[in-house]
């Protein structure tokens, strides 16, 4: 009695005998689409901000020296009382805020339960990369981003984008990412157009996305 796997692979072979496919090797696939970009850092950053705004994300540009102040201001404007942060978030980002901050897991601390996460007003993360052309933030569960669940349950996601995070387009982004990590690509707050094609923001997932974009160093950076 052959297994389903054997049967299916044998059917594939059968199909290829009945209708031999073209000999098109992987290396022969035509790749004439653009895989490099001419954009410098400033241009990418400007494009990123433009695209984030287009997606109805909130954006706060800030200088690196003012980052902690900006984080505090964003949380205060939002009226946040408690925020969850990933264990590897740079603590200096939180230096100016008096919001109650809970680190999710990390040294000697258990991960926060889903029920507790549901009570928290905000999540603060960095990002693995930010794609200028599409306004996409990518989280890869690294130390400054954390488990996927912490950026999913709270209603407000505050994400910091530093110059070294920014890349030009989707091909560049994929080249920087490790495919086997748990990845979440975020392009604006959640939305649906299922009701008469009326786009409604905020279904599941954080209904407000705010992005702090660090605007220095100024100038071209090779990438």
């Amino acid at each position, binding site marked *: 009695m052959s297994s*389903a796997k054997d*049967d*299916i*692979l044998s*059917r*594939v*072979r*059968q*199909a*290829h*005998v*009945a*209708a*031999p*496919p073209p000999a*098109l*090797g*992987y290396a*022969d*696939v*035509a*790749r*004439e*689409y*653009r895989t490099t970009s001419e954009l410098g850092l400033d241009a990418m950053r400007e494009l990123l901000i433009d695209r984030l705004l287009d997606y109805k994300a909130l954006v706060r540009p800030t200088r690196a020296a003012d980052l902690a102040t900006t984080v505090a201001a964003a949380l205060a404007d939002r009226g946040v009382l408690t925020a969850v942060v990933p264990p590897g978030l740079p603590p200096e980002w939180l230096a100016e805020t008096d919001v109650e901050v809970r680190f999710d*897991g990390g040294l000697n601390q258990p991960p926060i339960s*889903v029920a507790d996460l549901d009570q928290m007003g905000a999540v603060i993360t960095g990002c693995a990369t930010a794609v200028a052309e599409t*306004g*996409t933030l990518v989280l890869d*569960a690294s130390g400054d981003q954390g*488990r*996927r*669940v912490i950026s999913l349950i709270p209603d407000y996601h505050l994400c910091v984008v530093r110059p070294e995070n920014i890349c030009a387009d*989707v*091909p560049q982004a*994929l080249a920087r990412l490790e*495919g*086997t*990590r*748990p*990845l*979440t*690509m*975020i*392009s*604006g*707050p*959640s939305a*649906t*157009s*299922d*009701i*008469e*094609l*009326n786009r*409604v923001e*905020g*279904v*599941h*997932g954080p209904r407000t996305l705010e992005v702090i974009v660090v605007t220095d160093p100024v100038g071209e950076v090779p990438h």
Partner: protein
Amino acid sequence: MSAPTAPRPVVSTTPRPVMLGMPALPPTSPRGVGNLRGDESFPAFARHSLQDAQLRRNLGNATQTIRGKREQVVAEVDDWQELREAGRQLKVHTMAQLETYLPQLEAAVTAQGGVVHWARDATEANQIAIDLIQAKGVDEVVKVKSMATAEIGLNEALEAAGIAAVETDLAELIVQLGHDKPSHILVPAIHRNRSEIREIFLREMEGVDPELTDEPAALAGAARRHLRRKFLSAKVAISGANFAIAETGTLAVVESEGNGRMCLTLPETLITIMGIEKLVPRWSDLEVFLQLLPRSSTGERMNPYTSMWTGVTPGDGPQEFHLILLDNGRTAVLADGEGRDALNCIRCSACLNVCPVYERAGGHAYGSVYPGPIGAILSPMLTGIEDNASLPYASSLCGACYDVCPVKINIPEILVHLRASHTETYAAEHRRPSVEATAMKAVAWVMSNPTRWKLALRSGRIGRILGRQRGMIGEVPLPLAKQWTDARDIPQPPQQTFRDWWAKEHKES
């Protein structure tokens, strides 16, 4: 609005007729399970769906809006044609090398702690899912929208096994609560307007606010509250997958609302059911498809959320992951040299949104979870053409679908190929030619002789009398002609044949 259901025959796998001297072909998807076959032919159903003014208005508005958005974001991409060609070639290559890539995918998923199952058909896939869920001791699961699970009739099979499957996509939720069927691949509840949706929620949603208005934001808010309870307590989730990377074992789900993230992250156990054609060779190849899909489907530069995962990550997300690889007739499609490009489909629905027939008849008329142009070729090939014989004719062959397809599937060519297959199969099974075959033979006889052709053109002018009132010839109540014309209008022939006009024009020279 659903078609009346007749009892389905319980028949197991239907093999295609085997001709003496030829090797057997892979089986098509079995009857009696799943949602690939309608109860009425396309023209029969379309006749009444065309009368549904609300459906036509909603659908016309929806498809027009999405068409506009798609055009705009595609125009931004200066290497769009190059991306399309790369997408096409990648898919053709992958289908040709499925025998290598499928085991590679299995190995990569397994190496990262996932479990891979193989399902020859819908029945087997449903049983595997049921067994996995029952092993967890739960009777309710949350679902992310998945065409593959709709195709195999998973929800029906789960219900029969005492398991409730909660659809978490807003449109699928609307369809489920409304005891209805989806009418579009991407916006399945487009046939419903807001007041209908409000009524459905008031009637079927537990704990809903009785003061609920029909504002889309309020409706979405009601869905959020209703589903959040389910998400936060679900133990098992079921999803499909948009792409699977053979090289790394990574799966990708492309979505807008966040219910995908919820289902893929919160439960302890995740079961993903995916057609074997969704494979992509390497991680970097996603650079092509992640550009083609969002722009073609919702007309966005990028959809709100894309989740990617590989097997199991300790401490993050489901700690048990099962991937069910589904055949269900795909290998039968693969065996059709002229039709197999239908497997290249990435389910963007751009072809639906641009099709003049789909826009007017609606998705239900196709009788399958795959409607529109792609459905007209994929559904008959998955089931065997005789179970969906009317679908390849549900087209004017205008070719708009081919123009917008991000992976360049030549749908019109495959439609014509399937029409030819049907006439041959019909003749073989009924030992006489079909109406189309007879008509084509008659026309061929006339066209093969210049004098006969000239006479025919002249006498065609009589058609002007038939079409006098509205400039179009409708139904012609003569044998043979009736079957062709009762679902098609023909423009009135012109006053002068081309030959007469030419002769007159060139009299001087």
